[in-house]
């Protein structure tokens, strides 16, 4: 088949940020998948709750302190996260480097508290269905913190290497920031279920 050139693409940038980047859409799609997962475990929580005569099933409601502390850390972490994303957009490498270090620390902090959160549930996963579901919820979210922390750490190292000064890195930083917001947002309903619904 003969060809007839009608468009010249040579002027286009080599990489787009935001909705012009495929990784941005990929991250979005994975967030949709995991969001469905979170929605499902929450649905299971309420399903089991609707079946149980008393809720929580022979267990004291979880102690509020560790969970609330985690929630505070996560909510606060959104602010630097927002700035990192902004700096990445402005492609300000120096600020991004600082921001990534901060975000790494803010990723480790909740994990440390989370370790105490499991014991604060006052129930074991194999005590009864209530124990099982709260452990699953907490575990599922913990894995999300861990995965995003791993991602943040790798990126933090990367921005200090020669690969740092690269539009793709800034894109990655933005996607990572978006994903962290997702991790924070999904935590809020789970926090509500584990700590407050059980007190209703």
């Amino acid at each position, binding site marked *: 088949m003969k060809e007839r050139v009608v468009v010249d693409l040579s002027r286009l940038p080599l990489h787009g940020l935001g909705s012009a980047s495929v990784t941005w*859409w990929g991250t979005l799609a994975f967030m949709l*998948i995991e969001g469905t997962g979170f929605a*499902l475990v929450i649905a299971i929580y309420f399903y089991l709750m609707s079946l149980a005569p008393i809720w929580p099933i022979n267990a004291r409601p979880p102690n509020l302190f560790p969970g609330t502390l985690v929630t505070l850390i996560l909510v606060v972490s959104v602010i630097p996260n927002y700035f990192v994303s902004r700096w990445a957009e402005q492609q300000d490498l120096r600020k991004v480097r600082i921001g990534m270090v901060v975000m790494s620390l803010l990723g480790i902090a909740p994990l440390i508290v989370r370790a105490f959160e499991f014991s604060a549930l006052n129930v074991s996963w194999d005590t*009864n*269905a209530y124990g*099982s579901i709260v452990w699953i919820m907490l575990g599922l979210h913990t894995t999300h913190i861990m995965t995003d922390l791993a991602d943040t750490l*790798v990126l933090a190292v990367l921005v200090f290497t020669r690969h740092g000064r690269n539009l793709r890195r800034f894109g990655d930083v933005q996607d990572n920031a978006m994903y962290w917001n997702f991790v924070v947002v999904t935590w809020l309903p789970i926090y509500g279920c584990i700590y407050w619904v059980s007190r209703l």
Partner: protein
Amino acid sequence: MSENVARSDTRDTELGRPLVGAALEDTWATPSGFWGALSTVDHKIIGRRYILTAFVFLAMGGVLAMLIRLQLARPEARLLSPDRYNQIFTMHGANMMFLFAVPVMEAMAVYLVPLMVGTRNIAFPRLNAFSYWIYLAGGLLLWIAFALDMGPDVGWFAYVPLSGPQYAAGKRADIWAQMITFTELSALAVAVELVVTIFKQRAPGMTLDRIPLFVWSMLVTAFLVIMAMPAIMVASTSLILDRLVGTHFFNPAEGGDVLLWQHLFWFFGHPEVYIIFLPAVGMVSTLISTFARRPVFGYLALVMALIATGILSFGLWVHHMFVTGLPRLGESFFTASSMAIGIPAGVQIFCWIATLWDGKPVYKTPLLFIIGFIVTFVIGGLTGVMVASVPFDTQVHDTYFVVAHFHYVLVGGAVFPLIGAIYYWFPKITGRMMSERIGRWVFWLIFIGFNLTFFPMHILGLQGMPRRIYTYQPDMPWSGLNLFASASAVILAAGFLLFFVDAFRSARYGPPSGPNPWDAPTLEWATSSPPPSYNFARIPVVFGASPLWEQNETLAVADGLRVDRRELVVTSLVAAKPQAREASPRNSIWPLLAAISTSVMLIWSIFSPWAVVWGSIPIAIALIGWFWPKGVPEDEA
């Protein structure tokens, strides 16, 4: 690598057509040899593997089916022990659903979608490679287990408590559940790739209303996968936890619930049917328009029908649970919703018939399969309307009537179009035609064999024959029809055998096909068959829904892309306006390593929860290696 970096930025504009081809080949080709095969990220090579593997699983599942028919041919047959039989029908179901039907549809998309939207590779090619390896590992896990007498024996929907810790001894049920994790992982990965490819990598000018219908159907399917499959992953994970660490999700004595499993499973399980069927809808729409020599009638209506089916499919899982004693009122609602999904199906059927009526049908093998599809699928759809009725279902649920119904829907509704599609796209994939003469034999054998095998099962069901029984007693009035079905199954098997023979023979000795043997309108036919590693020397530009019919002499293309690095066009979501010359990753071994470490972790975790902790370390390493920039031109931005 280094000399690539050294080489200066060269554009296709600077080179003549043949030089462009050579340069692109140099950049995109997969190195020959073992290493190249393991590290390739070419969507065509991976798609071919996917399709081939899926058909191998189809053949193996078919053998199991023949064993089932052999056992049921006469009453109280002692050919298979109940233990073996239960493994066999479970394997047949799980294999056909999770290792054949879903993967093969996604595999066709992996191969075709990038070509049909006119790009050079699928989005996230390495994820694509990963998904294939994971899928392969899941299939091997299931079949090796079966060979070891460890095959799951709890039915393909593994109802608890039968599959639970108390009643399913050993690791058989865990292997089923973990196989699910493997296949869903790969399916989700492919779904993400497809969504992004279709959203962001369409050829310039391919606005939403110019997307080929097969691509539309795969877009909807991909979203179904994304929304439905998490449910089964949650379900199978909680089943494994119940069995391994003693959680109580499904233990009524400790506040769990047996029906929770059924809700979770069917919330995935019903969309699953449409995950298999919608791609077939896309194939039918594509083939019909080619062989009726007309653009398909009611493009917009068909797209709407696809979307409507996708949305409705989440609202009718309870019709699998009509005899579990849920409140009648709720059940009646699900009757309504289940019947309502017949409406979009009707729209599609009528649009296709209208297209045929308006057009000038060319009776090639693919069209025969489409006609066969309409004949059988309408029966399947109508029996679907029947089982959607609560009272009707109380008599036929879990009987051979239902077995007949879903075989009409899945084989008649999905496998017929699939085989038609293989006959249709075979020349594109291999560059050679399949035999028309044998094709007709294949069609009639499969069509007649299928209906003779499965139609009698409707009657068996109404005569009270439950499904999943390894034998039945001589004093039941079932032996006649069972023998008849078993005998007819031989015709069906012969048809498939002939199909495989034809495919293998034609792949070697078939007559060369040329780029566009059917004079089809969509972009995949604008390049040579088989397509070069870079798909299109210059990215096509489209102005309508059937580009090759509109601009049949010369193809409008875009240039200005670099040839010294893997580069493709990213376009805007709705209007498909070019946005960037995005790089596409090079071959890499890391996806394979990641897949291996993931498989090790998943299989290990059937036996010990600590696998999740220790097994994640190699996965993390593999992923870092995967994403760490290698200083190749693709990293530039």
